[in-house]
């Protein structure tokens, strides 16, 4: 079974996997840039993925509520941050 089939049985899980995939590239490039701050190509790639992450976050947050708090994600009309599922419950 492919990772997509195994991990994405619901629409929410498929969206999460998409975000996890983009975020993984950002994590890798972050650590890489920490030791290669002058790699212009890597910096350009980082910025591209940053945009993809922002777009994906907005899509997910519109349907499922905020991914971050402390004012980093749109709150919406009601306080849905504290609602399940939490990451270990998914």
């Amino acid at each position: 079974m492919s990772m997509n089939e195994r991990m994405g049985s619901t629409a929410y899980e498929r969206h999460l996997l998409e975000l996890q995939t983009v975020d993984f590239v950002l994590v890798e490039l972050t650590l890489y840039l920490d030791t290669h701050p002058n790699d212009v190509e890597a910096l350009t790639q980082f910025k591209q993925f940053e945009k993809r992450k922002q777009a994906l976050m907005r899509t997910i947050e519109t349907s499922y509520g905020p991914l971050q708090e402390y004012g980093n994600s749109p709150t919406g009309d009601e306080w849905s941050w504290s609602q399940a599922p939490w990451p270990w419950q998914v």
Partner: protein
Amino acid sequence: MDPQWRVEKRYHGSHDPCPPKPRAYIVPPNQYVTFQPQGIKQWSPREAIRHGVLWPELFSPYAPMDKEVRS
């Protein structure tokens, strides 16, 4: 067997009751990368998260040695 494995025979004493098994350990590619060069080949994002690394050169596959040595 993946080339990252090193296998050596161990001295087997006549009073060692367990069936003899080679000593095996893995040497990951991080031992050969002093400083990662710029612009090396990348996996696609999907392949990257599946492997746990963005760059194929830094990938270390792991399958339990026991089964491989015995087969």
